[in-house]
């Protein structure tokens, strides 16, 4: 049966009464009037949704504007009965070959409001139902036409969009005049003025009253195959000239012609949004009966003005205070306007299904529906000279659908220093569809580089989310400051235990003297370095000194090298270990360095604390980064407080364990790695090997676009005998004669320092695969010659010479590595974490990160770190026995521009019995010191006190226990 208008109105009321929590009858602002003598007829809408009308976005679906199109109001009732019935029963819906789960229905009703106007034109429908004598019967409403004997207005020509045909269109073109008319006798009579009819005013009223309506579909019939339209309807769409639009009088009298140059503007993003949603309609309708609805611009049907979809979409362009409402028309397919069963039911099913699928897309978060730009402007503030800084533009997207956020144009500089350049690091990010509505953030990344201190610039970038119809121009500002300088104090242990064997035939002191100079040799020009020593008390070593040019630099590096060379062991009562004194003195030395941005302490010790100041006393006073090297085993050093101190300052602690003749540069490498921490550089590569006498070695490494300056370092016992060269990506071999490279040879170290790109014979050498080439300089050495020349040398075998190669880079591709333990006793769980980022903050998630752990039993498994998102990778292992666990963390992957990169870091985990003891502290409130003073100064007579029952020797023992002196005769 075809439903009468009374039944429609009654059914709306019944729906609202039956499902009061999810359905509401809304009486529209004006009743429809009739020239047929009928009373004004109220027109109702039905709102379906679990949320209040203003609490969720809404989709407005209107039916029955054209009276003779009998199917659409039937679709409205099907939709209402289906959604309400399925939601309440917890079921889905099935329409032929298309089904919707109960969850789909719940999502629609719970997430959005669906506003249905089942019969916009009730008097017209009643007239058509009662009087149509042919299939293509009455189309218009039944309102009186002023100054005319004709009745009715084509409601879908009565909206306020290019209403004035003569003004907007080329009325000489019959393709325009055919489909809308100012003649009241015509079926397409537009009315005397826009919104002359109460039925169209009701649509406007509903949109104005419910501003959270974001989507609109006007349901019509009929077409051959079924068609779905999106704006515009006045002319062909174009996306290149925003000024060519219906509001621009320059194009008046020219619209409506097919194939000419005058068109109507719609942005690519808006077009994409409409196409997306139109295809959701199609995807819902097509499978029901195996049809294929056609999606196209409404102009593709015919040009016209005053149509509902154009008006609804144009509203936000006319007034910025009105919401965007994406608008569509569906013309159902059928053989007639009034198809007989079963065609009638087939058409109802497929249109209802299309609309449900459309609503499901809306309820799932149509891209563009809920997007918010989180970055109103991009501020590159205080960019350091010589570095590439990056900043994100962030778009928050809420919903289920896939979305893309990308740079549409720019970034470009609009003012300021021409040295400053803006570029794109990550131009696009996409997210896939998800099952449940979720709020997610999408990032694009911009970079800023090239400025000198004091330079400023402004710029702009256009970003878009095409699925969301979102386009914005984001302003950019930038300023540059001088590159930061690093400052460090070497805090060196001179307690008595430094004279003991280090494990490789050298004393610990000698190992220190051999290793620490590398830190000074490789430190960047301009860095400030000082030195303090500690045993029982601190003692001065060298003042804060500016590092001069690479090489001897007697007034800079030479001073610190000299202080290291003259480092000796304390004697007598000064042999104890007060690490706190050393840290305190080092901190005091670096504190006045106003020109230094990064202040660090690099503490080396080989013994546990047994004299005040204890670290626990001074840790609260330290606000510098502290790196520590434990020269020995955990049992020897018991570095509980040292570990805690470094962890609290962004530094870290490394333990050498017992040194090994096969790894003579371990301490030197630790110093050099720590140097990268002090200067915020990166370790690209850190391998070691043996160079056979007479042989050669090739050590490859990869540089990338984020690497600005590079140190390629080789540690050997005999650097003067080794030829070190570099092979650039082009194959060109570079040596120390290259004018753009600095080559430096020191004691046990030689290295190249260069900035990228460097001039090559044919082109600039930059990112790509580089190689360190090692071979012998001059006459081939033998074991006999080397052992005679340097009897005490380590790192030499009978057939080869030990080398360690390191590549450091000042880079904007950074890996931060941290190792943490839940305790310091055997059985501890050790967590290894690395984070990779480029340009300070762009996370790199597509990388392979491993941790090779050398266990005390000699095994060295490689653990793969699992990606945790945001560039973070993690793994953990158990430290089952006492010992040092060196952990070599290596990462390799591709940069944002696709260049291969590697990063390395070495950390140590430790475990020993007693690792859970509290750190040494001073508890005596000074009375032990007083007692010691009394004893040493002989101010009191011990024998006399003994007769009084006071045993000074036992009291002194108590003091020793309190200060943990009993654990060793000296530090």
């Amino acid at each position, binding site marked *: 049966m075809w439903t009468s208008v009374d039944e429609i109105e009654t*059914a709306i009321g019944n729906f609202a009464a039956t499902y009061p929590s999810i359905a509401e009858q809304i009486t529209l602002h004006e009743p429809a009037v009739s020239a047929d003598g009928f009373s004004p007829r109220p027109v109702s809408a039905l709102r379906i949704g679990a949320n209040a009308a203003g609490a969720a976005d809404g989709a407005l679906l209107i039916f029955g504007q054209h009276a003779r199109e009998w199917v659409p109001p039937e679709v409205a009732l099907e939709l209402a009965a289906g959604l309400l019935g399925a939601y309440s029963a*917890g079921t889905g819906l099935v329409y032929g070959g298309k089904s919707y789960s109960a969850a789909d229905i719940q999502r629609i009703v719970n997430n959005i409001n669906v506003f249905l106007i089942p019969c916009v034109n009730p008097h017209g429908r009643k007239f058509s139902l009662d009087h149509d004598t042919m299939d293509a019967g009455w189309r218009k409403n039944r309102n009186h036409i002023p100054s005319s004997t004709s009745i009715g207005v084509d409601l879908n020509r009565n909206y306020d969009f290019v209403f004035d045909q003569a003004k907007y269109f080329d009325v000489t073109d019959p393709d325009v005049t055919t489909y809308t008319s100012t003649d009241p006798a015509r079926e397409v009579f537009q009315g005397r003025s826009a919104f002359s009819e109460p039925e169209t005013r009701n649509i406007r009223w509903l949109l104005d009253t419910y501003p959270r309506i974001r989507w609109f579909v006007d349901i019509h019939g009929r077409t051959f195959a079924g068609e779905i339209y999106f704006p515009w309807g006045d002319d062909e769409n174009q996306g290149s000239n925003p000024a060519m639009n219906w509001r621009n009088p320059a194009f008046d009298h020219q619209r409506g012609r097919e194939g000419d140059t005058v068109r109507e503007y719609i942005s690519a993003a808006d077009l994409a949004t409409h196409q997306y949603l139109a295809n959701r309609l199609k995807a819902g309708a097509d499978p029901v009966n195996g049809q294929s609805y056609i999606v196209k611009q409404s102009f593709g049907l015919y040009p016209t003005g005053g149509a509902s979809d154009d008006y609804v979409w144009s509203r936000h362009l006319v007034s910025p205070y009105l919401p965007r409402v994406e608008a569509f028309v569906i013309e159902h397919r059928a053989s007639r306007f009034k198809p007989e069963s079963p065609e009638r039911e087939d058409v109802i099913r497929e249109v209802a299904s299309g609309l449900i699928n459309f609503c499901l897309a809306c309820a799932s978060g149509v891209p563009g529906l809920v997007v918010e730009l989180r970055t109103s402007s991009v501020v590159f503030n205080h960019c350091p000279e010589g570095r590439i800084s990056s900043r994100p533009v962030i778009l928050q997207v809420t919903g289920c659908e896939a979305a893309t956020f990308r740079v549409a144009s720019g970034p470009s500089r609009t003012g300021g220093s021409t040295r400053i350049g803006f570029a794109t690091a990550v131009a696009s990010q996409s997210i896939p569809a998800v099952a449940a509505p979720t709020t997610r953030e999408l990032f694009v990344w911009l970079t800023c580089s090239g400025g000198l201190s004091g330079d400023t610039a402004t710029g702009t970038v256009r970003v878009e989310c095409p699925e969301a119809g979102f386009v914005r121009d984001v302003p950019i500002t930038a300023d540059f400051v001088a590159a930061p300088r690093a400052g460090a104090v070497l805090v060196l242990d001179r307690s008595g235990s430094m004279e003991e064997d280090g494990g490789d035939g050298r004393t610990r002191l000698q190992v220190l003297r051999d290793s620490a100079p590398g830190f000074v040799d490789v430190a960047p020009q301009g860095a400030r370095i000082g030195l303090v020593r500690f045993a029982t008390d601190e003692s001065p070593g060298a003042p804060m000194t500016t590092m001069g040019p690479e090489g001897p630099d007697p007034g800079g590096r030479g001073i610190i090298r000299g202080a290291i060379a003259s480092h000796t062991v304390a004697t007598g009562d000064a042999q104890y270990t007060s690490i706190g004194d050393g840290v305190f003195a080092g901190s005091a030395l670096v504190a006045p360095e106003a020109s230094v941005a990064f202040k660090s302490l690099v503490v080396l010790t080989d013994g546990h604390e047994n004299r005040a100041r204890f670290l626990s006393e001074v840790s609260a006073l330290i606000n510098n980064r502290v790196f520590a090297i434990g020269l020995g085993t955990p049992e020897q050093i018991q570095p509980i407080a040292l570990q805690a101190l470094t962890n609290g300052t962004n530094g870290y602690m490394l333990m050498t364990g017992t040194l090994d003749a096969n790894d003579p540069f371990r301490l030197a490498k630790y110093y050099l790695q720590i140097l990268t921490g002090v200067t915020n550089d990166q370790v690209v590569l850190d391998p070691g090997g043996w160079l056979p006498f007479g042989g050669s070695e090739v050590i490859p490494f990869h540089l990338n676009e984020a690497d600005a300056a590079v140190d390629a370092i080789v540690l050997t016992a005999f650097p003067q005998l080794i030829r070190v060269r570099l092979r650039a990506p082009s194959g060109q071999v570079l040596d120390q004669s290259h004018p753009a490279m600095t080559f430096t040879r020191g004691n046990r170290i030689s290295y190249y320092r260069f900035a990228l790109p460097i001039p090559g014979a044919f082109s600039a050498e930059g990112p790509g695969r580089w190689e360190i080439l090692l071979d012998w300089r001059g006459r081939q050495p033998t074991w006999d010659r080397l052992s005679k020349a340097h009897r005490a040398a380590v790192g030499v075998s009978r057939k080869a010479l030990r080398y360690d190669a390191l590549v450091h880079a000042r880079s904007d591709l950074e890996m931060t590595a941290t190792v943490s333990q839940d305790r310091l006793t055997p059985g501890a769980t050790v967590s290894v974490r690395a984070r990779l980022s480029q340009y300070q903050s762009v996370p790199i998630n597509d990388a392979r990160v491993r941790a090779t752990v050398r266990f005390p039993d000699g095994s060295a498994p490689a653990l793969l770190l699992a990606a945790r998102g945001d560039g973070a990778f993690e793994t953990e292992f158990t430290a089952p026995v006492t010992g040092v666990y060196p952990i070599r963390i290596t990462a390799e992957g591709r940069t944002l521009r696709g260049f291969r990169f590697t990063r390395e870091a070495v950390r140590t985990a430790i475990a020993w019995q007693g690792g859970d003891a509290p750190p040494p502290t001073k508890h005596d409130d000074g009375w032990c010191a007083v007692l010691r003073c009394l004893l040493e100064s002989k101010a009191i007579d011990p024998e006399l006190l003994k007769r009084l029952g006071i045993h000074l020797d036992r009291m002194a023992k108590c003091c020793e226990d309190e200060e943990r002196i009993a654990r060793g005769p000296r530090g």
Partner: protein
Amino acid sequence: MAQQRFEVLLHLKSLKAISGLAVDSACMPRRKRADGTIEMVAVVTGDTLKRLQRKRTVSVEVLADTSAAAKAAADQVSRTNRYADGSLPVALGLQGVRRVD
């Protein structure tokens, strides 16, 4: 009542051929053929039909009389209010659907 109207299938090279004529073709099947000609369903009055039939550039085919179909459709119009008792339309999409808990 207005004069009799006819539902016709028009085949024309250009819309100029029907310019100025009361041809109701809105929201009715229309397609552009590969040769650029237009095929469209329209409703016209008897007078307009005669004028169209006189044009050489327009081919007119009067579709089978739809009055019988319209009469059949009218017979299917509900003349009572089926929902006056508070009942609701039954959704086609719910037929055969089982509850999913």
